[in-house]
């Protein structure tokens, strides 16, 4: 007996918690970086502050696990489900299950590519493509007026991961307009400092004149800076450094004039998320897309911004 999925197995909300508090099931990607940990912490704190019971699950970077976690949330009849998708694709089935169970879903940090937009209520997060574009824009502006060729090396994130794909694409989109920019080498540094340093060291040996380093995240940039210094060059001057994320260490480096610009990708979306959760649970309408406040920081802003960095 095969049939389409049963509908409305539960329906309604508010059964998740005995004490009448709202229950939010949050399926996090993992804890692969300090950025992610800050993201988790922000959600945790905000939930506590907002008086929402948080069911937290960590997927260890695996989509399977995230889907399993969402199933468990459905099983446990939480009021709202929020999650940061590991990737954009492949969520339809489980989101349908959630919809059938009458549980609203909020996406954070990353979008999904579902055709059926009724499957989630809203998206709260950053736009990685935009971050890449911002990085590109800064570069174009920095070299405005010169016509000499500019050699760029790129440290990509984990091959195939959404931020890596998007930050690369966004950057390329902006930069390709001007033929003087040439990406001479592009290699994955797996978002880690150690890998960033190792790859940069190899770049420095195989490419004589590197003008700019574009790193998909701060950790790789910080690793690469060490490599540049060991090669006897000055990061930020001899080789300009562009980075994404905006962790505290990056701001310190920026203050030391080792990084030229940081495109922020803000993980602190907890409070915004809880707002949305409350609204969604109450059945109020919410905008389809909520962007987190993010900025682009340059060296002169670094000193001022540093004390406020929380992660």
């Amino acid at each position: 007996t095969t049939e389409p999925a049963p509908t409305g197995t539960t329906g309604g909300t508010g059964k998740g918690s005995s004490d009448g508090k709202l229950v939010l099931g949050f399926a996090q990607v993992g804890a692969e970086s300090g950025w992610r940990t800050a993201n988790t912490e922000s959600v945790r704190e905000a939930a506590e502050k907002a008086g929402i019971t948080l069911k937290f699950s960590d997927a260890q970077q695996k989509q399977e696990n995230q889907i399993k976690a969402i199933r468990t949330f459905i099983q446990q009849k939480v009021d709202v489900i929020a999650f940061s998708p590991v990737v954009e694709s492949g969520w339809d089935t489980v989101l349908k299950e959630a919809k059938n169970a009458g549980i609203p879903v909020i996406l954070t940090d990353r979008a999904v590519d579902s055709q059926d937009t009724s499957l989630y209520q809203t998206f709260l997060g950053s736009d990685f493509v935009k971050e890449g574009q911002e990085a590109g824009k800064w570069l174009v502006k920095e070299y405005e007026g010169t016509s000499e060729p500019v050699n760029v090396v790129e440290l990509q994130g984990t091959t195939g991961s959404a931020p890596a794909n998007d930050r690369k694409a966004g950057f390329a989109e902006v930069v390709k307009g001007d033929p003087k920019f040439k990406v001479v080498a592009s290699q994955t540094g797996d978002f880690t400092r150690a890998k960033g340093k190792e790859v940069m060291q190899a770049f420095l040996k195989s490419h004589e004149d590197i003008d700019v380093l574009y790193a998909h995240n701060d950790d790789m940039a910080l690793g690469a800076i060490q490599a540049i210094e060991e090669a006897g060059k000055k990061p930020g001057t001899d080789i300009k450094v562009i980075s994404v994320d905006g962790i505290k260490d990056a701001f310190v480096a920026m203050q030391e004039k080792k990084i030229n610009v940081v495109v922020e990708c803000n993980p602190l979306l907890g409070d915004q998320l809880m707002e949305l959760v409350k609204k969604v649970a109450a059945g109020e309408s919410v905008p389809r897309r909520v962007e987190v406040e993010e900025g682009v920081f340059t060296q002169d802003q670094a000193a001022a911004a540093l004390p406020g960095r929380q992660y």
Partner: protein
Amino acid sequence: MSTTLTKPLHRFSARHAARLPLMVTATLLVAMFSIGSVQYEGFFSAQVLLNVLIDNGFLLVVAIGMTFVILTGGIDLSVGSMVALSTMLTAWLVQQNGLPLALAVPVVLLVGAGGGALMGWVIHAFEIQPFIVTLAGMFLARGLCYMISTESLSITDPTTTRIAQTRVLLPGGLFVSPAVVIALAVLALAFVVLHHTRFGRTVYALGGNESSARLMGLPVGRTKVMVYAVSGLCSALGGLLLTFYMLSGYALHAVGMELDAIAAVVIGGTLLTGGSGFVLGTALGVTVLGLIQTVISFQGTLSSWWTRIVIGGLLFVFILLQRLFGGSRQAE
């Protein structure tokens, strides 16, 4: 004249000793489920168990293939990547090239089985350690995924989506996905093959002592090639099930699944040195891993690192109890 071959006193236990760990594992599993039920609201339901199957059907299929390989004393590290490649290939064929699903499925299965057979042949013909050959296979399959696309490819093909969202209803309002049915069918088939066919018995013989098996006139080369082909086929099938589960093809799917599969097989009581173990144990092993996941999800208060620590800890307690109650088979 009569030869005095007095029967050993413990004939029963000697013959059944091999099955004891299996029973112990099953018992522990029941205990784990009971503790979960007492501890967590909503845990004690048949659907929770079925969900373990729904969420791990693909792993079960992959681990079954791995069981064949490990029983011969080999190892197959390529399964995780092969799963990813299958999802990618399916998505690419169906979504980008518009191939009907009915054609894509056999292609994918063929690629899996063929890749496996090729690795088996290299292992046998050139006497290279399986670890290194299948590691190369792992790199290659994952690399081919990236070459197809670094992005995740969604599948919106209506047939595929319909199959993916089909549920097999069971009495009592319970349901499973077709993948579960397929996985259980593969399990039954694997059981029959391993225990009731010449090929299956040769697999065990090979694991017992490869050079003896050769001298006994068993088709060692053919069996080895076939075993890796089975594993490749199972990972391709697992990949297809995962494709239905996720409705997408992605190069980063199933990262590290080879370890999960190996762990499931070994927790299920199969010796990594080969020759001893049961495919049913593998099913129990997969259930153990899945149930641990479920317990963690139900707990719902663990931070990322505590999740890992607790998974490790539960695994530790489990194998500890398994050792303590499962007799004193010494480490090989």
